[in-house]
Structure formats: C-alpha cells, structure tokens
C-alpha cells in the first residue's frame, strides 16, 4: 500500500497541524517508510487473540464523591495565553 500526498494532507488536517510544502515532501516518504515497516504485522496470524489494553490486571476503582480542595482558578489560568475574567479567551469559533 502506498502512502500519498493526499494522505499526508488528510492526516495533517485531522491532527490540526498546518504543514508546509517542504514538510509534506519529507513526511510522505518518512511516514510511508514507517508504515511499510509496520506492514510486517500482517504476516502474523492473530485469529482468536484478544487485543491488549492493559498489561496489569485493573478494574474500575470507585470512591465516595466527596468535596476536596483543588487548584484555584487563578493558578489554573496563570500560564494561559489569553484570558478574560474567569474564562480562557479564544479566536472566533462560529463564522
């Protein structure tokens, strides 16, 4: 399976990363190489094998829903690029 310029553009847009023409040129080859290396997984028979999500047995952990102190709003906003009062400020969302 070959990896195309269109694929690069598509996943760059899914990833919310604006890429330049030069980057596109480099990534199409590098990602293509990596993906063809990964193709080797298709040589293994995995019929009936359960996919792994956790390496160590874990189950849901419950606790009482009690009120506890947390980080203050001022602290949480301290390194934000732009704030307005209690809010994080962003560029226009709806055109």
């Amino acid at each position: 399976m070959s990896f195309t310029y269109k694929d690069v553009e598509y996943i760059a847009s899914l990833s919310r990363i604006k890429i330049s023409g030069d980057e596109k040129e480099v990534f199409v080859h590098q990602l293509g190489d990596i993906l063809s290396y990964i193709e080797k997984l298709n040589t293994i028979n995995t019929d009936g094998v359960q996919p792994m999500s956790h390496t160590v047995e874990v189950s849901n952990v419950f606790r009482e829903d009690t009120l506890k102190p947390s980080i203050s709003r001022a602290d949480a906003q301290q390194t934000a690029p732009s704030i307005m009062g209690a809010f994080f400020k962003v560029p226009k969302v709806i055109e």
Partner: protein
Amino acid sequence: MSILGFTTHQIKEKFLAGEAKPSEITSQLFQRIKSLEPKIQSFITLSEEEALKDAARIDKKIERREKLGLLAGIPVAIKDNICTKNILTTCASKILKNFVPPYDAFVVKRLKEEDAIIVGKTNLDEFAMGSSTENSGFKVTRNPWNLDRVPGGSSGGSAAAVAADLSYMSLGSETGGSVRQPAALCGVVGIKPTYGRVSRYGLVAFGSSLDQVGTVTKDVKDAALLMQVIAGYDAQDSTSSQTPVPNYADGIDNGVKGLRVGIPKEYFAGGLNADVAASVKEALKTYERLGAKILEISLPHTEYAVAVYYIVANAEASSNLARYDGVRYGYRTSDSSGIVDMYSRTRAEAFGSEVKRRIMLGNYALSSGYYDAYYLKASKVRTLIKTDFDTAFEKVDCVICPTSPMPAFKIGERANNPLEMYLSDIYTIPANLAGIPGISLPCGFSKEGLPIGMQILARHFEEQKLLQIAFAFERETDFHLKKPAL
C-alpha cells in the same frame, strides 16, 4: 575523587557522621554544573536558589538530630516532563516553553517528603519522543564519555547528569526504553518499574498504557533507595497498583545461586554490535560463576515489537497531545483567523518534526478505515509479546540481554532517519509492551571506551528480585565505578 563522585548511600553516611553537609555539597554541585554544563547541556532549568535554601534547611535538621527523610539533603535532578510546582516544566517543547505547573507530580511530592533537594529539570527528546535527546526543542545533550556522541534518550539529560556527577540521582521516564537505553549509553543504572508501580500523576502523558517514571542512579543500592521513595499506590492515577511495596534493600545481597537466567536467542541475532555482544556474554559467565543457571529461551515475537510500539504509543500520543491547542496553557500563534486556524498554526509553529510525525502516524492508525488494520492488529500482537514473556517466565526467573544494540552513536548519525532511530529501541520496547520491570546496569566498555549496558527483566512487580540479581553482578565488577574524563 571529589565528594560529588560518591553515591547517595555513601553521602548519606557522611552526612550522619558529620563529614559533609547538604549545603556544602549542593554549592559544590552547582559550581561543577557551571563549569561542565556548557559542554554537556544536560539541564533545561536549574533551581539553584531554592536548592541552596532547602539544603540549609536540611543542614539544620541534621544538626538538631531531627527525623530525616530517606533522601535528606540529596540533590536529585528531574526529567523536564515531570511536573514541578513553581518550576518551569517544558517537556523540551516550544509549546510548553513558559509552562509553570501549579502542582507537583506524585513522584516530586514524594521526593520533597523525603527531604531531597531538587537540582533542576533535565533535557529530553521533545515530549520524550526519541532515543538520542537530539529531538529536544532547546538543546542537544552530549554524552559525558564522548562529547561527540549522544547520551541516548529520551531521558538523556537525566542519564548524562548522573554520569557526569552533576546530580547524585535523577528521575527519568519510560515509554519504550527511555530510561534503560540512556542509562546504558552513559554507564549508569536505570530502572523501568512495572506498569502501575509508580504513579503517573504529574508525568506529562505520552503513551498512557506504557508510560512509567523510572530511576537513574550511580549504582544498584541507590536504585533501591530511589525506588523505595517513588513506588506505591496513588489514588490520582487510575492505573496505580495497590500491590504492597517491599523493602527494596532487603535481600539485595542474597546472590544468584540456583537462579535460572533466560537468554533470548532472538536478542543475540543480527544487528547486535560485537563489543556489546561480547560484554553481555562475559557478564553471563560471571553469573554462571556465581551459581546461576543459564538457559536459552525464545521470545518469538520480538521482531514485531517495534512495529507494535509505533502504532500503540503513537495512537495514544496523538490523543494525549491533542490538549496542546494554545488555549489553556503554553504557546499560541500570534497570527490566525478563526479557532481551527489558530490550533493548526500553534501546533505547526511549536511542535518539532518528530512530534508532528508521531501525532500524524497515530491519527492515521486510529482513523476511520484503518483502525482495524493498524491499532487493533497491533493490540493483538501486543498480547502475543506479553504471552512470550509469560511462557518464558514459567521456565526461568529472569531474562538477561543487551539494553541497546550498540554503544552511544554519533550526534547526527541517525537524526535524519526516523525508522533507523526507532530500531535502536528494539531490546527495550518489549518490556514496556508487556508492562514488566527492567533494570539496565553497566557491564563493560567498547573498544572506543564507551559504556555498555545489560538489562535484566523479571515478572510484574519483581523489582526487588531485579535489584538482587543486579547487585550480585555489580559487587563482582568495577564497571560502575569508572568515571568519564571531563
């Protein structure tokens, strides 16, 4: 040897005997950092003022014979992807170049509770993505043994700082070998604990099913000490284990008589540097002489580990790194039209190439139409890799193999070929995929005088056994005592 060359357990004795004081060693340490750091570049941020204040406070505690923490007065360096309250935490990324966390990671809180002194934050590959520390957004760290070589990665700053005596110990993090590999390349001891053994709270997320905080120390006893401090249950991490934490120093000198050591034949196949192979084989002879039984085993799915890893880790990374959107913290582009354009420009301007590649690869693997072929397939092969270890551990008590296929490579040598760089993690990645613990320790030097490391792997939660096996070798050899000429 200067006092900075001592191990943590040695310096602790000197404190108690009144032969040294935390404030003295801390100021000496910062002098050494000032003279050597321009060559090595292991730190992103230094916290000298706070460290000297803390050291003076611990001086008084010692004088007054107050109860002391396990790391009282010991300078410790912290990888810069571990959150430190009021100290810059950048992940070596321009996107977090001004991020000062409002909280401490669990492991940092534990260090403070045990009276450790924070030296500063160490360099890494951006977001821990890399094997050489060349992917840092700020600087390239150099190997103290040869300044033209990489220190390994991604915890390259943590390993180089300990190897150069710029810190007594340090914390690193692993997703696919990022503690053990730099420890091997810098001639120090590195532990990747069992997944769930150490809380991930405050460790900036990369691949959440793989990430673990690890230790970098000058010897095995120091590794036991640092593990004692950071291991344990934490309700703030949903995958934190409630398995009791043993006393890691207990039985450390019990030796290896009768121990069954498995040697995976797949790890000694093509691509292994001859000096590395020779050193590890020599180490196995030492174990045999000490009474261990060496048995050949097979981990048949080893060759697929790198492929599985670069699907699983990057799929998780693509989700975890979605939070860097220029809204709540970190960098935001100065020029954009609308919100999506702001996200895309912010991320384009502030992420380095490797991070972009991995996010894109991860999103590709998770995208509609490809999920089954990549992510699901990789998750199934991951099960087979873990089963390989389960089967092996029915016959043997531990596995010993090289940590890295080669000693430290030259700066720039692999930087332009991501796939080749990925393959340098071939021996470390399987343990992360299986969630088992591993320790890397010095076992020799190459013809060029570069350190060589071997790793020991065991079953889940058997860190104590790893320390015992590693210590049995360390006390018979002097590789860990050698210092780079700086």
